[in-house]
Every structure is written in structure tokens, then in C-alpha cells.
């Protein structure tokens, strides 16, 4: 028999036992459903992570630290010696002491071949922002990152922000009393930066012991440095930002350094940074990047590339997906026994038909194939049914998930790839064929004389 006839005949016998076929296929469909959704979630999550990373980070940039503890590595079980450059950070709820990077370190890092630029990670101690006759608001000022993707709704923006200009998020426009975004551009806002308790200020306050509360509060006011900035542009609320960064304001790297210096001058924190970003010339090239990382390591610093961060995140996703996929696979393995059972029944029911086909000269091999195709049909139906249900449910749920998780419009957590589904269905058909192997062998080996005995 030629292939097409075999496939058609096997399909016909599937049709003639609808109930049995559907029940067996349903068992496979359950597993397929879980696997399809898992694959889709994995695609979506990976794409989301990649999107966030590619829109917020430069792949040619390395995060360089003086202390591997910042990456959660290193031995925390032994006490470490005091060093004035050590500070405490909170990571996953635990306090960690880390050694910071100084200007000298930066000089060293800059000396590494292919390091094109080093920018410090600066945390500006902003008290509030305001403008005349307006309330004071909390805020977060960042140094502009060359790789961050930003949409401007008013004004114009360049990566090289001029000194004393600021990029203002949309959210501040109305609260600061601007009519609209256009109105804000070119206007001045004031940033209050906290000043440190330095030896000088202690001296000062020592001289003014015995002041009234009013005078003391005036003093506290004085410990803020007020800096005026011109709004260069208003930023649109980003669609795929890191959560919590929606209201970031941006100033140039130089301004950021200056503002930070105001806060830290005279303290042990002066010009000390948790980490710096080192941009590597041609760092998109994995080999160049690795060489630079190696050179940085030789100097005693630890570095991490965006790719490593990405891999870390996707590997977490991978583990979670693996667990769900495992359950799906177990469901499919369980359904294999269903197929074996169904196929044995089918062979028994069609003993006479098999006998007749053999008497008419059908080859053993073709009889075996006929039943294996029948098993493949069951796998195909189960696979298609399960994946269609998954795609259907996913399509319905996607908008809801996007809103619930606030992923930003246009981002879907469940991404179905047709090729993946096709491959999955093909794998299921192969698994079904394997499950149908023993029953099909039984059919092929059937003695036609026995099968055709009427009594």
C-alpha cells in the first residue's frame, strides 16, 4: 500500500471509533496544553527581559566593582577588616558590606585596553524638588545613561545634556504647576540636595548652642544646597522601564557627580562609588568583552556584563518553566499508556479486517504501519486540540495578564510560535507511534487463518 492510502485508511478507522479516539486524544491534549502554555510563557518572559535589558542597558558596558559581594558572591561567613571605603548595601533583605570604587580605581580601570569610558554609578541624595510658589515633591535624580531609551513629549533631548539642564518626567508637569509639557520646557526648577554633617558644620553648630527652635529649623534648612536646573525636555512615561523607575529625572553625568559631591564632601563617602560602568570599545563583540573582563579581573576588580545579568534572569525563568514543562511531560507519558491500550483494543476489534487484508496480499510491514499511523493520528489530534486550546486561552488572557502585571501596552506575556507548536505536535506524533509499536506488531504478526475463522 502506498503511504497516502495507509494514512487515509488509518484516519478512517480513527473516525469510526470517535469516542475512544477523543478520550485518548484528550489525555494527550492536557499535556500539550500545559507544554504549549509553558513554551509561550517562556518566550514571552524571555522577550520581556530582553526588551527591558536592551532598552535600559548597553550591551557593551560592564558593571565593574571592587568587591564581588555586590554580585552576591564571595565569602560572607568571615569577619572582614575595616576599610573607610566600605559601605553597607541591602540586597534581598540582607545587609552586605562592600568595598567601593574610588577615583584611583577609576583611573586604573580606564587604563585597561579597550575601555572607552567609565561612568560612576551615582546616587544623588535629593531632598525634594520644587519651584517658586509650588509644593515640594520627592524625586529621584539619575545621571543620564547613554543606552537608556526615552521618549520625549516636549522639548528636545540630546544624550549630551547641557550643564544645569534636566529631563523631567511627565508625572511632575501638573503637580509643579505647569500648564502642559510644552509649558515646562525652558522653565527652572529647584533641587534641594542634602549636605553632610561635616567637621565644619559640627563646629558651626557648636558655636550656636542655645538657639531657639525656629533658629534651629533655619539651620536645618541651610543644610540643603539648592540647585536650579532648566527643564530641557519632558519625558513620556516609558512602556518598558524597570519597575520603579518611571519617575526618574535625568541630569548629565557631570552634574550628577557635582550634586553627589555636595552631599559627600568632607565625608568618607566622598567620590566613592558602589560600582562603575565601563564601556568597552567594540564590546558588542563577545570576544572583546571577555578579554576586557579578563584584564579587569587581573587588576583585582570584578565585572559583570549585561549578558550575564540577562542569563541570570533567563535562567531563573528557565527553572520555573522547566518545572511546569516537567508536569506537562508527565501528563504526556501517562497518556502514552492510554494510547497503548486504545491501540490494543483497535487491533482486537479489527482482527478480521487484518486477516482479510493479509489474505488479499497486504504486507506485514504495511499492516504495522497502518496501525502506527492510527496511533500517530491520535497523537496529532491530541496535539492540535491541546495547542489550539492553549493558543485560544492565551489569546484571551494576554490583555488581562498585561494589565494585571502592568507590562506596558503591546507586551504579551504569552507568545506562541507556530514553529514550536508544529515541532511539539510532531514530537507527540512520534511519541504516539512509539506507543503504538507493540499493538501494531501484534497486528502485523496476526495469523490470517486464525483471524478469518468464522466460528
Amino acid at each position, binding site marked *: 500500500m502506498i503511504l497516502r492510502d495507509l494514512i487515509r485508511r488509518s484516519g*478512517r478507522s480513527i473516525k469510526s471509533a470517535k469516542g475512544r479516539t477523543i478520550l485518548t486524544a484528550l489525555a494527550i491534549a492536557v499535556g500539550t496544553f500545559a507544554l504549549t502554555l509553558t513554551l509561550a510563557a517562556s518566550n514571552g518572559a524571555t522577550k520581556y527581559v530582553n526588551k527591558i535589558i536592551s532598552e535600559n542597558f548597553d550591551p557593551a558596558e560592564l558593571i565593574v566593582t571592587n568587591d564581588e559581594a555586590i554580585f552576591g558572591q564571595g565569602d560572607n561567613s568571615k569577619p572582614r577588616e575595616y576599610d573607610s571605603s566600605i559601605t553597607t548595601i541591602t540586597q534581598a533583605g540582607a545587609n552586605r558590606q562592600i568595598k567601593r570604587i574610588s577615583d584611583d580605581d577609576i583611573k586604573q580601570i580606564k587604563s585597561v585596553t579597550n575601555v572607552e569610558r567609565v561612568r560612576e554609578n551615582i546616587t544623588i541624595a535629593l531632598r525634594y524638588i520644587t519651584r517658586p510658589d509650588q509644593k515640594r515633591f520627592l524625586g529621584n535624580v539619575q545621571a543620564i545613561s547613554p543606552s537608556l531609551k526615552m521618549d520625549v513629549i516636549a522639548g528636545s533631548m540630546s544624550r549630551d545634556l547641557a550643564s544645569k539642564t534636566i529631563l523631567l518626567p511627565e508625572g511632575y508637569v501638573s503637580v509643579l504647576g505647569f500648564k502642559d509639557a510644552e509649558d515646562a520646557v525652558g522653565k527652572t526648577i529647584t533641587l534641594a540636595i542634602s549636605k553632610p554633617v561635616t567637621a565644619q558644620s559640627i563646629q558651626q553648630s557648636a558655636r550656636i548652642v542655645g538657639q531657639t527652635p525656629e533658629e534651629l529649623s533655619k539651620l536645618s534648612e541651610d543644610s540643603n544646597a539648592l540647585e536650579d536646573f532648566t527643564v530641557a525636555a519632558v519625558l513620556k512615561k516609558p512602556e518598558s522601564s524597570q519597575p520603579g523607575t518611571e519617575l526618574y529625572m535625568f541630569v548629565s553625568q557631570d552634574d550628577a557627580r557635582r550634586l553627589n559631591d555636595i552631599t559627600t564632601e568632607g565625608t568618607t563617602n566622598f567620590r566613592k562609588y558602589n560600582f562603575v560602568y565601563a564601556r568597552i570599545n567594540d564590546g558588542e563583540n563577545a570576544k572583546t568583552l571577555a578579554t576586557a573582563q579578563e584584564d579587569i579581573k587581573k587588576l583585582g576588580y570584578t565585572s559583570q556584563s549585561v549578558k550575564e545579568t540577562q542569563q541570570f534572569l533567563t535562567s531563573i525563568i528557565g527553572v520555573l518553566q522547566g518545572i511546569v514543562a516537567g508536569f506537562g511531560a508527565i501528563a504526556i507519558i501517562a497518556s502514552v499508556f492510554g494510547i497503548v491500550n486504545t491501540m490494543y483494543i483497535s487491533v482486537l476489534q479489527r482482527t478480521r*479486517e487484518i486477516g482479510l487484508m493479509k489474505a488479499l*496480499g497486504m504486507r506485514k510491514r504495511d499492516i504495522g504501519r497502518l496501525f502506527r499511523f492510527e496511533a500517530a493520528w491520535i497523537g496529532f489530534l491530541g496535539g492540535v486540540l491541546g495547542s489550539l486550546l492553549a493558543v485560544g486561552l492565551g489569546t484571551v488572557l494576554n490583555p488581562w495578564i498585561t494589565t494585571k502585571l502592568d507590562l506596558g501596552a503591546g507586551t504579551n506575556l504569552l507568545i506562541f510560535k507556530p514553529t514550536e507548536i508544529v515541532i511539539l505536535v510532531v514530537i507527540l506524533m512520534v511519541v504516539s507511534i512509539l506507543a503504538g509499536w507493540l499493538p501494531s506488531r501484534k497486528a502485523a504478526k496476526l495469523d490470517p487463518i486464525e483471524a478469518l475463522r468464522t466460528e
Partner: protein
Amino acid sequence: MIQVKDVTKTYGKGESMFTALYKISVEIPTGAAAAIIGKSGSGKSTLMHVMSGLDHPSSGEILIGSKSLFGLKQRQMDAFRATEMSFIFQAFFVEANQTCFQNVMLPLEIAKVPARVRRKKVEAALKSVDLLDKIDSLASNLSGGQRQRLAIARAIVNKPKLIFADEPTGNLDSATGDLIIKLLFDLNKKLGCTLIIVTHDEDLASKCEMKIYMKDGEVKEIVGLNNKQPIVKKGSKK
């Protein structure tokens, strides 16, 4: 011509050995209608199975034309059976949940007949058994006589040289049976194929040109065309 030469068929070994056929030698000329007659247990069905290659004899050989049936490899035997032989059974063995067309198509599919000529052949076969109007009906909607006619259409569709009919009227009332027999003989003459009918019905056998009487695994008597064939003397059976 189909020649059965000295065929013996035994089952089991030693004490429990049973001889189903004992030194059978028969020649059936091409185009003849021959009946193998005997009571149940006489070995008539076993003889048919051996002649069609479904069963292997313990010794002896079957020659069809000049070809030795058991000299063929399994693959060649299958191909031979698909193109030159056909069967009609007492219980019809038509697939009830398939249409007449699909039932008759089976031998064509097995013989790998090209798809484009199949429909014509099926129609011709159904026409010769007067079932053309039922071509797309399910076999389950047919009466017993119609089902056997369908089985006959299936048997003749690929123009075999040899048709085996095992009690073809056994499940039918006598009037329907007579019609089936008439149809079989008409086709035998029209198509020129050899027809071998296995039956215990003397009435049916009497219509055949050649009658092979069997008893206890041996040929008792051959009447008709080939009565020159020496009748095997009853040997010493274990």
C-alpha cells in the same frame, strides 16, 4: 493451471500429531470452476489455505502456472496474492462502516493500482454485481445478499486469475444463494478466471465442472474434468 503436488499438512508433534492433509495431488485447469467438497473436518478449508499460500504445507508443493508458490519469498507471495488471487468468505467480511466504494477499493490499494484508474475499476466491478447504485452507501445498509455481492465485487475488481470462495452461500437463504452462485459462474465464464469453491453443499457442487471430494484429509474422488488424476489410495495415517 493450478497443480497440487503431493501435499501433506500436519499439526503438532509426536503423540499429538494431527494430519490435516495427506498426500494430496490435484490439477485444476485454468478457467475451470472446481468444488472442494467435504464435511467439516475433512481438510477442505486447509487445502484451500495451502493452495492460496496462506498456510504452508509440511511437504509437497503448489504450482500455479509454472510458478512454485512456496518457492516465492514472502514479499513476492504477498504481491502475487495481491494481483492474482482473491477470496470470498462465508461471513462476507465487508467493512460495515465503510462505503461500498471503499470496500471494493481495498484490493486496488493493496496492489498499488494508480489512483486515477481506481474509480473506473471499482465502478466496473460494482456494475457486474449490480450494485453500482450503492457505490457511496455504507456497507452496513446492505442486506446479506447485497453484502456478498459486494464481497464478490471486491474479489473481481483487480481481475485475479484465481478466486477462492469459502462456503459463499453458507450465510444466505437458498434463493439469494442461488443468485450468488449464478453470478459467480457467470463471472467465471466472463472473466475466464479459475474459481475454486469450498463447500459441503452437494447442490452447489453439482454445478461445478470439477468436483474434488475430501474425507479425513485425503482426496476420496475427483469427478469431472480431471478424472484421469489418480486417486490416492488410503495410506497408513498415524
